[in-house]
């Protein structure tokens, strides 16, 4: 009987204080589903795929069937309708095992699908978002150029306005999903005299004549994520494929990257957490000087530092995801999340290799791969230095 009286009061307290760190049942299920897939399927062949730099076609297909591709797209457009928290949880779990596969997902979901859903016309959504929401087609985001990596204001790729269509010429570099992706978002300069206000974003089908792919880049890490240079030579893009008003492209790209950073931060988190889990496991199994590594304070303290950093990153990422889900501004938070998560992933994976010692340096034990993968999270979708510019600019704003 007592509980019946107390219950309504309790509920009203909950309403008063909305701060809540608890995951919903769905969040937990999504995390478990991603964990099960990663541990059961991705782990089987991740070493081989890394060695051979093979695109994980089978996994892309399976993850599509499970609904991870397009998971945040509204059900109206065939997506999963999930929040960014869910996406972060999925990215972390997949990246613990195979961040190369996870990045395919990240680019698709948080850059391309999000961009088209947020800024696309109903016709563009019908034509491009629907197949991406179901995962039938994968997206790629073409921003970086040989001479404009982090500095996106100086686009050399040109989109000449021809009335009914635009004519694209130029080269994009380090493009993730360039091969696995079918739907490109291409950022190009239409009005060079206007600087970055002259830039446009276009939705481009990969099969458009005039588009060619350079060979798969032979990378240090994330080797089975397909990265290519993409060349445009007189590629015709219909006018209706332009996103937003004329000159909206730069702002579009920056907005997309705000959310993209959450995905990459979650990826870095997963890489770090995966390496840490392996280090913890190893230190509990391996003995040195007559006792388990975990019983050596030098190792235990390393683990404590790793645990702290991972948890810090997780909180920052989830906070930025929560802001995004609740319609609050999240650009600075996501820059902080990405900066912190990427740098800590580098530190944590390096320490994990150190704890595993000789085992850590050989491929079979995974942590050396995770360390190689961590490095890229400090570079792509805005280097750590760029994130500092974003953060400090916001802090110093008058």
């Amino acid at each position: 009987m007592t509980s019946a009286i107390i219950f309504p009061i309790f509920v009203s307290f909950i309403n008063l204080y909305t701060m809540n760190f608890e995951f919903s049942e769905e969040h937990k299920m999504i995390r478990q589903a991603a964990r099960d897939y990663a541990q059961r399927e991705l782990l089987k062949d991740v070493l081989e795929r890394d060695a051979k730099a093979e695109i994980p076609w089978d996994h892309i297909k399976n993850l599509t069937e499970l609904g991870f591709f397009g998971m945040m797209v509204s059900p109206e457009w065939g997506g999963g309708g999930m929040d960014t928290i869910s996406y972060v949880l999925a990215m972390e779990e997949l990246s613990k095992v195979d961040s190369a596969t996870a990045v395919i997902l990240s680019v698709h979901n948080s850059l391309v699908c999000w961009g088209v859903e947020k800024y696309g016309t109903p016709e563009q959504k019908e034509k491009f978002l629907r197949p991406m929401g179901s995962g039938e087609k994968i997206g790629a985001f073409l921003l970086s150029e040989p001479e404009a990596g982090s500095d996106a204001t100086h686009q050399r790729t040109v989109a000449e306005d021809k009335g009914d269509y635009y004519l694209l010429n130029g080269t994009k570099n380090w493009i993730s999903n360039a091969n696995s992706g079918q739907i490109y978002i291409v950022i190009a300069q239409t009005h060079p005299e206007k600087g970055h206000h002259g830039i446009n974003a276009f939705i481009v089908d990969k099969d458009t004549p005039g588009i060619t792919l350079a060979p798969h880049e032979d990378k240090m890490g994330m080797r089975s994520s397909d990265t290519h240079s993409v060349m445009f030579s007189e590629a015709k893009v219909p006018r209706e494929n332009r996103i937003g008003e004329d000159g909206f492209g730069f702002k579009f790209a920056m907005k997309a990257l705000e959310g993209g950073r959450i995905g990459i931060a979650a990826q870095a988190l997963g890489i770090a957490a995966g390496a840490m889990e392996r280090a913890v496991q190893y230190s509990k199994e391996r003995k040195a000087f007559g006792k388990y590594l975990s019983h050596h304070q030098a190792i235990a303290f390393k683990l404590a530092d790793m645990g702290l950093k991972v948890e810090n990153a997780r909180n920052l990422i989830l906070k930025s995801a929560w802001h995004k889900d609740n319609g609050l501004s999240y650009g600075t938070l996501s820059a902080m999340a990405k900066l912190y998560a990427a740098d800590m992933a580098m530190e944590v994976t390096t320490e994990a290799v150190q704890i595993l010692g000789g085992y850590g340096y050989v491929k079979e034990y995974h942590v050396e791969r995770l360390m190689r993968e961590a490095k890229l999270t400090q570079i792509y979708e805005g280097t750590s230095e760029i994130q500092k510019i974003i953060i400090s600019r916001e802090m110093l704003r008058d």
Partner: protein
Amino acid sequence: MKILVCISNVPDTTTKIRFTDDDTRFDTASVQWIINPWDELALTRALELKEGSGGSIEKVTVVNVGPKESEPTIRKALAIGADDAVRIDAEPLDAHVVAGELAGHIRNNPYDIVLCGIDSSDYNGSLVGGMLAELLDLPSVSSVSKLNIENDEITINREIDGGSEILSTETPFVAIVQKGIALEPRIPSMRGIMMARKKPLNVVEAAGAEPLTEFVRFELPPPKAACKMVDEENIRELVALLHNEAKVL
């Protein structure tokens, strides 16, 4: 045709087993709960059968005897693909209670095929399926490693000591399934997870089945002595140890 899959809510199989209250209770603190692995395989097979049935299997229902706390596990089964769920609101004190409650429900809501896992990974009863069949006066087949339905004809592979048998059976019946019934449990899709709350989970009152057994006290096995390491260049020593010390060769 309707299939019922009975599921238990059990601790994750990697759970560190601890007891509390003077070793009279399993310590559930920080335990992650899952669908009992054999039940999950049973569910997977039920869904495969439904999908391949061309509509002749209209529904797969899951049922659990348990308190409200087991609902996340039930919803996981809905996320995996069960059409609806029933929770019989009772503490699953022993197999007699669970089977008694299930039988009470099934008597009023008949199914053509009832699937149970052969064991549960917590208290290892291996009892509920057989008891349920007996209470309902239905045929049962145990140790089922394959179950097929073709033109309403049911064929079952049952593992026996030293081989296997193929059986046919009439419906309704109870199949008590083991490893092999499905390749591996399904991972729920994002859509399935989002749908889970929209599917019916009917809570029904317990009929008041009585337990006939009770756990008095738990104990952990004594710690094992350290492993004797033998050098790989000295296999003969291992054979001598097995012969003279362990006396098993």
